């Protein structure tokens, strides 16, 4: 290996996006160089695995406070795909090694499912990743979440804005839209109006669904229909759905999982798709000719919450406290370009990595901040209209 992985990534990020030329020969050659060497190293050194978790470009977690150690298991539910792969390396494995608590993974956290689980008394996971609006929305309907035990947390470094009584924010990300670089003959879409411009940018699209715990892209719809970014909230629901209706014939898929828009763009099933920014980064790394648009997109933050009556709730509290510590937060940001909520994590990341996170100043100034309070009030109304919108 003549250059390190991070230098190579930097060089690729700076190069023109002829990633299709990257090609399979190059991929195989790189796979051979990194894969064989890494695989050989991993196999030979497996028995020498040290408690400090360090890998290329990832800060190590050397130790955890005793109050976070325990026994048994914790069942964690996240969104699968590239995000969960990164979380496994950044959070789950170090937590298992250092705390002695086994992590059992599953996918598909859905607030409606949490309600059904708590109501029927069969809670299938102990902690899941939601957005705060869903947590607040469900809180209004009854006692569905466990209060977070902040005595276990690194509260000195986590702003109060991220700490909610029933959930803790920990993953700032951008909801963007991405396009195939080979689709428009050199024309580059720049904002939401372009996403909705079926004449200037023709082709099939994929947008977020309102099913499966997700919410439709109403802000994008409003801005695509001409509303300026500072007038988007409070959202005029009818106007947003009317705008979505104008593009409905071109939407071939209302995606319900993070991996879908990335897969569809890679397969050339769609030329434009709204998506979560880290998933697009993952397919770009794998060589797909895809690029994100940042202007007037959304900055959102995911939170972790514990369903009421979860069997392993003490372990869930410890797990949630662990993943908001500085090192695990920095580890995740170094694997997939999502932000962090622990201020101390910034010191553990390189300047280049900080620059591509959605929270970096250059990107953040283009983004609109998702209004959690509005969605907490209005999710039910939106989802009710969503079903009739689909049937129309």
């Amino acid at each position: 290996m003549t250059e390190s992985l991070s230098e190579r990534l930097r060089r690729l990020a700076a190069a023109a996006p002829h990633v299709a030329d990257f090609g399979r020969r190059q991929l195989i050659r790189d796979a051979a160089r990194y894969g064989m060497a890494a695989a050989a190293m991993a196999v030979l050194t497996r028995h020498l695995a040290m408690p400090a978790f360090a890998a290329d470009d990832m800060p190590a977690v050397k130790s955890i406070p005793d109050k976070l150690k325990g026994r048994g298991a914790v069942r964690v539910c996240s969104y699968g795909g590239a995000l969960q792969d990164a979380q496994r390396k950044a959070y789950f494995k170090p937590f298992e090694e250092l705390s002695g608590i086994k992590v059992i993974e599953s996918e598909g956290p859905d607030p409606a499912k949490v309600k059904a689980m708590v109501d029927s008394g069969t809670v299938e996971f102990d902690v899941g990743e939601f957005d705060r609006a869903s947590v607040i929305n469900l809180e209004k309907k009854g006692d569905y979440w466990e209060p977070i035990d902040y005595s276990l947390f690194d509260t000195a470094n986590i702003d109060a804005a991220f700490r909610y009584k029933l959930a803790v924010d920990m993953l700032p990300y951008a909801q963007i839209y991405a396009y195939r670089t080979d689709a428009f003959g050199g024309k580059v879409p720049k904002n939401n109006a372009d996403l909705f411009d079926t004449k200037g940018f023709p082709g099939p699209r994929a947008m977020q669904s309102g099913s499966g715990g997700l919410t439709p892209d109403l802000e994008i719809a409003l801005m695509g229909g001409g509303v300026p970014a500072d007038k988007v909230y409070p959202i005029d629901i009818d106007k947003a759905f009317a705008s979505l209706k104008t593009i409905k014939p071109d939407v071939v898929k209302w995606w319900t999982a993070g991996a879908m828009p990335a897969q569809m763009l890679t397969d050339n099933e769609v030329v434009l798709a709204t998506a979560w920014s880290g998933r697009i980064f993952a397919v770009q790394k794998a060589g797909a000719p895809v690029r994100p648009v940042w202007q007037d997109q959304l900055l959102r933050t995911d939170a972790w919450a514990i369903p009421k009556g979860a069997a392993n709730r003490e372990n869930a509290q410890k797990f949630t406290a662990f993943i908001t510590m500085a090192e695990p937060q920095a580890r995740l940001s170094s694997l997939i370009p999502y932000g962090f909520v622990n201020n101390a994590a910034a010191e553990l990341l390189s300047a280049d990595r900080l620059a591509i996170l959605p929270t970096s100043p250059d990107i953040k100034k283009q983004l609109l901040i998702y209004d959690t309070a509005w969605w907490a009030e209005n999710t039910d109304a939106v989802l009710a209209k969503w079903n009739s919108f689909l049937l129309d």
Partner: protein
Amino acid sequence: MRRAALAATMALVLAYLVFPILIVVPLSFSSAKFLSFPPPGVSTQWYAAFFGSDAWLSAAWTSIWVASGVTVLAVLLGTPAAIGLHRGRFPGRGVVRALFLSPLIVPGIIVAIGTYFVYARFGLVGRPIALVLAHTCIAVPFVVINVGAALHGVDRRLEQAAQNLGASPFATFWQVTLPLIRPGIFAGAVFAFITSFDELLIALFLSGSTAVTLPRRMFDQIRFDIDPTIAAVSAMLIFTTTGLMLSAELARRRAERRRTRSVPSLAS
């Protein structure tokens, strides 16, 4: 000429039926990072990903031992049931037979939802024992049907002859009837195993996050991960199931041969 046309039509129909299944195999050897057809190159990375992943191996292991438990339980329950239904003379026999076969007719999702509500009350959701019990309900009919069919071919006079010679009813069953219906039991066991191994609907409800079976994991991964490991798992499942079905078919053929061979002098 007509034979050639018939053969050609047959080949086309077979291809139409089998192609969607076989297409998975080249996909599983793809060197691309995402599902794409045609695959750009050959690689066994997805098989390596399956065998290197704790989650996949644990799901496969759960599926295997749940299916084994179901097979044993279904055979133990289904064989006497089949004998009772075939030989017994009691009022309501038709109704009982229909009830035994009803899991085959009732839509799977209804069975799944019903078992979920009942098992949730007992706190069994997310425990493998729940899967064993629920899958046994849908596997028993297969055993009953196969053993019932095998019983049809057993000549009662053999049993009567055995009892005439002094064997107790149990000894008659054990030494005369059982060897004759053994291929039927084996076929029923294979069907029970495959039914449990491939079952998705009940597993979706009862697996939780701690008793995840292979089909359940594949379903979740298709929604959330979409990578060719699914193709590798599918290819392996296809070969396993095909192997099991072939062995069931061979057993059935052996039973046929045995039956036509066993009573040459009594056939009149």
